[in-house]
């Protein structure tokens, strides 16, 4: 239990036999529900203190992965190490290392927020006095101190989510799993949750965050794994991902009409990669800022009437699109 002391600052014992301190190591996880394959050999590693995103569309296998990592689902194949503990051999220690925030809100509606937190915290053998202090701190952190003695059933969806997250933090886990914690939530609560997450991250907690919102992944995650149909199709930092598949930002210029003459004129001054699609010019560039003005001047000199200009940045959405040929969100 000493390991878990300190205000959300995980005190991590180094993995002695590894040079790099991986907090979580997942090797070749396979899982199917009956005939339905959910995971087809998922592997990734998460360093301590890392904010790791698992990004994927509905049914990709995010919850399945989290369920396996949090010991409640047995994989058909594969190995998981959390901290220094093998998940299979030492599930008890793994459970004490992790905190889990489920996709669904799981609280006792008939009990107050305080009673709920008291109960969930007590399951981890936190001494009663410590627990009370931590509950007070946590309620403060989530802005619900004044409502703590109201029954959960009187809370709004966003407030319930906040308590749901708070209940997973009381034993001060080294690793926090969060499965789409912002689904169906008001902007105020979402921002509050984001603030708390950033704080926890800064304090050094390892966070595994699943989402199908690429904005969230881009905003918080140190590293991201993109998962689709039970397979990790890419992983790395945001920049690494943007470079996968040689994706470049592009400028799309729509003209009123394009004659072949104009096309060749434009072609001569445009360096680098480009292509015409009907009335649209796609120009791929590594520096939008300088290329954009050059492009506009060149086009007007060539006598082409510009109707619209669009800058297409590389983001997780386009990465996902280029990797799978489909939209992240349908």
């Amino acid at each position: 239990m000493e390991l878990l002391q300190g205000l959300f600052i995980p005190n991590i014992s180094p993995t002695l036999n590894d040079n790099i301190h991986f907090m979580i190591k997942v090797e070749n996880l396979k899982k199917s529900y009956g005939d339905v394959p959910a995971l087809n050999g998922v592997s990734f590693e998460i360093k301590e203190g890392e904010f790791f995103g698992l990004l994927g569309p509905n049914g990709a296998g995010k919850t399945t992965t989290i369920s396996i990592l949090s010991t409640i689902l047995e994989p058909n194949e594969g190995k998981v190490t959390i901290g220094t503990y093998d998940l299979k051999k030492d599930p008890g220690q793994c459970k004490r290392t992790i905190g889990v925030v489920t996709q669904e809100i799981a609280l006792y509606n008939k009990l107050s927020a305080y009673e709920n937190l008291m109960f969930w915290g007590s399951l981890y053998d936190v001494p009663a006095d410590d627990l009370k202090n931590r509950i007070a701190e946590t309620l403060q952190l989530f802005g619900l101190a004044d409502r703590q003695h109201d029954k959960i059933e009187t809370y709004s969806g966003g407030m319930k989510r906040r308590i749901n997250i708070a209940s997973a933090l009381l034993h001060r886990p080294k690793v926090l799993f969060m499965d789409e914690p912002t689904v169906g939530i008001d902007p105020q609560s979402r921002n509050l949750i984001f603030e708390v997450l950033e704080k926890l991250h800064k304090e050094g907690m390892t966070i595994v965050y699943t989402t199908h919102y690429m904005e969230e992944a881009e905003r918080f995650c140190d590293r991201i794994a993109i998962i689709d149909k039970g397979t990790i199709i890419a992983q790395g930092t945001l920049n690494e991902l943007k470079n996968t598949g040689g994706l470049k930002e592009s400028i799309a210029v729509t003209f009123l009409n394009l004659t072949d003459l104009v096309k060749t004129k434009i072609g001569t001054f445009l360096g680098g990669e480009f292509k015409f699609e009907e009335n649209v010019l796609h120009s791929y560039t590594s520096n939008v800022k300088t290329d954009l003005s050059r492009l506009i001047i060149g086009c007007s000199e060539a006598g082409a009437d510009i109707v619209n200009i669009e800058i297409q940045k590389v983001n997780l959405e386009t990465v996902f699109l280029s990797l799978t040929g489909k939209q992240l969100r349908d």
Partner: protein
Amino acid sequence: MFKIAVKDLKLFMADKRAMLLTFLLPIPLITLFSLAFGGSGKSSEARPTILIMCDEDKTKASHHIVEQLDSLKEIKVQLSSLDTIKRWIGNGDEDAALILHKGLSDSMDAGKPLPMELIYDKAKEMQMGILMSALSGNLMRFAGTKSFEKKALANFDKQNPGMDSAMREGVHAMIASNFSGGSRDGGKDEPMLKATPMEAQKENSPGLVQAVAGTAVMMLLFSVAGLGASLLQEREDGTLKKLLFSPLSPSNILFGKMISANLVAMAQLLIMFLFSWLVFGLNIKQNIPGLILMIVATAFACSGFGIFLASVAKSRAQVQGMTTLIVLTMSAIGGSMIPSFVMPAWMQHMAVVSVNYWSIQGFYDIFWRVLPVTSPVFLMRVAVLLGIGLVLNFLAVRLYKRNIKSIA
């Protein structure tokens, strides 16, 4: 484990409907049933029972017995011939009759077993118990002396070989207590007169026992089924899954539920018996160890039922449906609504599959048959209840462990 139990109790107490159902609803029901079965504690106000008798001995002594019995306020004797009596009983018109055979007077003088016989309708054994207990004491008092006691017991056994063993014990206890004086194996020179006044053997009216025990068990089954359903509620709410993330072992979660179900069940039974004591004068102090044993055993069996139901059912709606069906059926055949003894014999035989039967009979043992805690018959019932609880809990654990895998 205990944390789970405490949390469950808190949840239970937060649920006003469940509280009401558990602790308040049974009270009007007991009242209703006890009125229906005429079960107020004061048996003296009861109408006299007609006792059909046949005096074949026709001596002074036998005549004396008839007169004495008739003089009792709870009995009114109606004399008839042996043939008529046998016809009546055979037709089911009458339940029983007491026959004083020839040689009664001589046997009394000689101190031999008395040729008395109670013939009764086999289907009405229960009423016989009531009658027997009223009769035995008085009969012996009029006929006899303390030295008759053992003979009377032997005689009773010989005459009624087919009698249910619990009934037999009850009657034995009755007979023994009516020989009274307390020290059965004590001084030989003890006065031979019966010293126990009728007042002292005022037992609880069977109607009251029936009303209290019957209602208590039935309502208990309903409320523990509700508690069991809380397991399914947790499943539907996702809190069960969340519990599985914690270091608690999955079985501890179920054990916690069992503990809270048992505690609530015991509290409910206790309150019902206290109520019956305060309001209806049920003499619960008569056999406190027995009562505690029965409350524990009944609570264990019933909570086992609730937990079992929760692990079989797939949803709360299903539990509710199953509860209503099973509890009502068990209560009906087990004697919660109508006393077992008024049911046809085949139904009485079926009753043994219900928790209600064993429990109600156990309470009869304590309050009406006045069996000691150590009586094998009573202990057997306690054992059956504990056994039922054990089996149901065991099955529940097995099913639960299988189901828990599909929760993630």
